[in-house]
């Protein structure tokens, strides 16, 4: 059990490293922040 928990914790820490490296913000996971490309066209010069 200790070993499984150790692997679990190591995975979580690795996830934190990856998220920081890639710039993920976990609290934004459920927010859709990407529009369709067309929606930006009206502003684009």
């Amino acid at each position, binding site marked *: *059990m*200790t070993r499984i*928990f*150790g692997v*679990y*914790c*190591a995975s*979580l*820490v690795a*996830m*934190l*490293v990856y*998220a*920081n490296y*890639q*710039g*993920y*913000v*976990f*609290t*934004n*996971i459920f927010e859709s*922040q*990407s*529009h*369709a*490309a067309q*929606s*930006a*066209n009206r*502003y*684009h010069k």
Partner: protein
Amino acid sequence: MAGKSVKSFSCPACGGIVEIRAAGHTISAVCAHCSTLIDTANDNFKIIKKDHEASRITDIPIGAKGVLDSIKWEVIGYVEKKDKSSMSYWDEYLLFNPYFGFRFLVQADGHWNFASVIKRHLPQAGVASEIALSGESYSVYCRGLSTVEYVKGEFYWRVRKGDEDKYVDYIAPPKMLTVEKNRQEVTETLAEYIEPEVVEKAFGIELPTKTGVAPNQPAPFHDKLGSIWKITILSIFVGLVIQWNMGSGTMVNSTHIHIAHTERDKTFSTPVFNLPNSSNLFARSMVPVSNDWMELDLSLVNEETNKAYGTRQVIEYYSGNDEGEYWSEGGQVEESSFSAVPAGNYRMLIDPSPGKMGDNGMDVSLEIKRNVAVWSNFWIIFFFIIVFPLYAFLYRWYFENKRWENSDYAPAIYSSGESDD
């Protein structure tokens, strides 16, 4: 195996056949037909106590054989005892192996112990509240007076219904040391908790389900809690170091715009800025609204792909004086984040929706940073790390409370939750 020492004779009371499995060791036996207690120390087979009670069915029958600790044992005797004050009952099965002697299987509330009599002088046994044995410290759990309620099979000592012993139980889970005293002798028995499934498997029987927590039942995670907490602290420490190393981010753009009264529907844009690699982006807006509001639709647009990432900020600030008391609510600063924005050239489009906005218009300052340390990421990871150790700790505490609730000697930490009734 020298197991062919089984000997039989006729019961002097009823004439039924009485079998002796540990011949040469047994000094008393109970007739399985009439429950008469017979002296088997010699071949006279005198009646010690005549009885007419029908033989009871026990969880493990007399004569059953099973392997425990890699040794084959035969059940030769059974005693039911009860505590005179608490009226709790337990069963003691006497096991015999011609090479290894005698052991006991003790059952209470479906919990089982495998026990043997120890031949070590423990001067404080039965008196002290703590006893050291083989490097372990045993704490007193209960003291009482036991009485024999029922006897079946054969024994290497004289036992009869009504026999009484003073006893003290000490525990160091999964072990329990029991000190029994009567007029003739002091007996010290060391028991180790075993799961009922082990007994079931050993004797090929089915046992009733256990209830409650036994005095010396090993607590869940009892030998792992220390390691679990070490891993937890190490993981959190590593997470903190990683998070601190992220720093406070790099400014990629700082823009100041003025929204004139006539530009309420105009879309503004920041200059193009570059993100050299995938990163988060934080947009911080400062608008000096006062008793007013401003809504900003921000769109981060990739110059090459036209892909846009949107967010909305509502900035509102109200203040006033009510009966001489100053109050305020809201603020003039708002921050939004963009997650994992791919590398590339971007501009931020600002689409303001002002509230009242006076004739002088409104100033908006926008700061955009990348690679900002996101502490919410850390706290989410922290939560997932801590949840199991916390559960293990609380469950262990609950378990220990249950263990000690039947004891008059509970440590202070476990004795505060006693019922009031």
